[in-house]
């Protein structure tokens, strides 16, 4: 949660929270555990109607400018997705909007923006590769321009909503750098293996590209020149993921504090036991720190600050580390009931654990941070 929200941002937060409470209460999320997609197109239309998908789009293309700091605005919604452990490709949509609305200076895909905002067009963002590989330098998926065609080969993994999307933005290596292309769901040579995750409703797919041939118009930005854009997209993805995690942790924390006040053991509420209180105090420190570092990262992103990338990876490292520890210890504080399917705590734990790993574990990011410190 950001502290210094504008009136408009406060309104956005309250609107999003009420919307989630009404349209995606926890029992409804539970209902979708067994569904293939984890969410329906109808749900995504509702989210879009609320204007949540439009926050990362330029105003000129039908986007909504709330505070002039689009990432910070979008993070407010991401946090509410986290609080509700709600389904839907909010993160990929925001990242793709960032890619075509801001990063791509050629502007050749701006026509997609209205469809994206309205929820008619569903997108995915294919970045990581099998073996938890999140370093573009180590990517194997490759793209080359051959005449008036682009030929794409390789595999992308952990693609959120990759089986549901109409269009996927793929990052691949090309001769002299990174290149991004849009691949439609029905492209010949593309095979999609749907997958599940620990989360109740978040699905990930593996996409295999075998000589997928695309027109040059599929290029997003100039070939070989995508590194900067990819870095911006990764930053945004990391920060929205952090915001979402923060929302999940915050609600799980509130839920547990409430429970601890009502649960009696040995003649008094368990919330009065010092050993538990001290752990709760540490958690409060970590939760506020997690919000602070996410907020700093978002601010740097919106301002295109020089250290924006470092701050995004610091946020991811901190948030992913502490969030997992917190929600695990929340179960400990709660006791046996937290080990049951019917108690909601694990819904938040699941989202937190998935977010910990996707886009790189904190261990991965610490190693990157260490390397850059020593450089």
């Amino acid at each position: 949660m950001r502290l210094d929200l504008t009136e408009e941002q406060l309104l956005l937060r309250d609107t999003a929270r009420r919307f989630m409470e009404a349209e995606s209460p926890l029992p409804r999320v539970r209902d979708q555990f067994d569904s293939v997609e984890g969410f329906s197109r109808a749900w995504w239309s509702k989210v879009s109607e609320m204007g949540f998908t439009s926050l990362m789009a330029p105003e000129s293309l039908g986007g909504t400018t709330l505070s002039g700091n689009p990432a910070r605005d979008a993070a407010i919604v991401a946090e509410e997705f986290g609080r509700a452990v709600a389904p839907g490709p909010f993160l990929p949509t925001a990242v793709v909007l960032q890619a075509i609305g801001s990063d791509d200076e050629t502007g050749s895909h701006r026509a997609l923006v209205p469809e994206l905002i309205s929820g008619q067009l569903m997108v995915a963002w294919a970045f990581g590769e099998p073996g938890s590989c999140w370093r573009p330098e180590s990517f194997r998926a490759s793209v080359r321009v051959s005449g008036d065609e682009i030929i794409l080969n390789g595999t992308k993994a952990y693609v959120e909503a990759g089986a549901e999307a109409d269009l996927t933005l793929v990052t691949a290596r090309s001769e002299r750098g990174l290149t991004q292309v849009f691949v439609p769901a029905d492209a010949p040579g593309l095979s999609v293996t749907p997958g599940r995750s620990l989360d109740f409703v978040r699905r990930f797919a593996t996409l295999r590209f075998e000589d997928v041939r695309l027109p040059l118009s599929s290029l997003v930005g100039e070939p070989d020149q995508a590194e900067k854009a990819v870095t911006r997209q990764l930053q945004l993805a990391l920060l929205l993921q952090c915001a979402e995690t923060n929302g999940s942790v915050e609600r799980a924390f509130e839920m547990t504090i409430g429970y601890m006040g009502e649960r009696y053991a040995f003649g008094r509420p368990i919330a009065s036991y010092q050993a538990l209180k001290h752990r709760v105090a540490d958690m409060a420190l970590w939760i506020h720190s997690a919000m602070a570092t996410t907020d700093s990262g978002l601010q740097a992103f919106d301002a295109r600050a020089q250290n924006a990338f470092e701050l995004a990876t610091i946020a991811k490292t901190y948030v992913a580390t502490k969030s997992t520890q917190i929600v695990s210890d929340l179960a400990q504080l709660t006791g046996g009931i937290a080990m049951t399917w019917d108690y909601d705590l694990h819904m938040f734990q699941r989202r937190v654990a998935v977010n910990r790993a996707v886009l790189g574990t904190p261990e991965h990011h610490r190693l990157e941070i260490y390397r850059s410190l020593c450089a």
Partner: protein
Amino acid sequence: MEDIEDFRRRAQAWIRENLVLETGEPTGPRGAEARQRDRDLQRMIFDAGFAGLAIPTEYGGAGLSLEHQRVWAAEAEGYATPKGYMVSIGMMLPTLLDHGNETLKRRHIPRMLRGDEIWIQLLSEPSGGSDMAGALTKAVRRSDSYLINGSKMWSSGADTADYGMCLARIDWDAPKHRGLGMFAIPLRAKGVTIEPIIPVTGGPAHFFIEYFDDVEIPRENLIGGEGDGWTVAQRLLFHERNATAGVGYGYGLGGGSSEGSTSWRKDIVRLAKASEVAGDPATAQLIAEDYVNMVVARQLGERINTGMRMGLLQGHWGSLLKLGMGIDTPFNAEVALAVCGADGVVWTDGEAPGDVGLNWLSCRGISIAGGSNEIQRNIVSERLLGLPREPGDDKSLPFSELLKRRR
């Protein structure tokens, strides 16, 4: 008593003749087939005189010692032995031995040893997990029976058990710990309803909830005296911690740092090697720390076993081991999350769901069940180290007064 080395040779010979080598069955709840296999095996072991080695002969045991039990377990390592009796034989039986009346002991202990009767504990309630002495289940005395009403929770194996040891309140005006009795309740009796508790993984139920609706049991089913319920429960918890930690009567019955956890740890190394994450040195320290913890936990278990066997350690040392398990297990689960990265929490449709993520979700089971880490820390600090208890009046007030404090 039979010389220990003579016994070793005799056990060795019988084991080689009669048991088959372990095949590495998966852990977790087990089906009817596995239970029948267990029952057959246990009967065979009982008939050969190797069940209840430390239990007096008048109750169907072998009349030997815990040292003989340790030797048996050592010799039987690697062989398929029954896995389903840790609670019944490792915890409930010694409690019955300590506090049951002769009628109960002579009737039930031989059946328990032979695997014909399985007992479980009924201590925790929905209203309070750790604070078992706060039981709200009622026992009302009639002429020659008790009438039980209430509910119990977190009982493992209630679906297949025959008897439960149930803590219930007889006197509501006595202080909390003094108004309780312990009762042997036949679980197929009229008025008993047993429902499964779905665990956090969504998998099959390990734990159950039982409802007692005017369940009538004979007076002789009271274990200990009418005000002794808490004393019996504490003894039960003592045997439980010991069995879980792999010491005392539970030794060799499947508790402690089991093969399950060992092979799990090996999996981390294998997973690390297989995935690109391990190429990274990012998780090397975690993997090594986890491995060190596992080895040291086993060494501590050996140390405490030695100490208890030699009489150098007395009392609540099982709590130290239980606490260690309750700390190491969640750490291990977190290390696995780190090592496996996205492959631990994301998987392809149709494939088995990722063990790593589900294991992390349920890793607090061991640190909550059987006395949470917090309870063990209280026991270690107060009873092993002698630190003063916190002030409080919940031991002296009438229970009915205490109840009024809850909103």
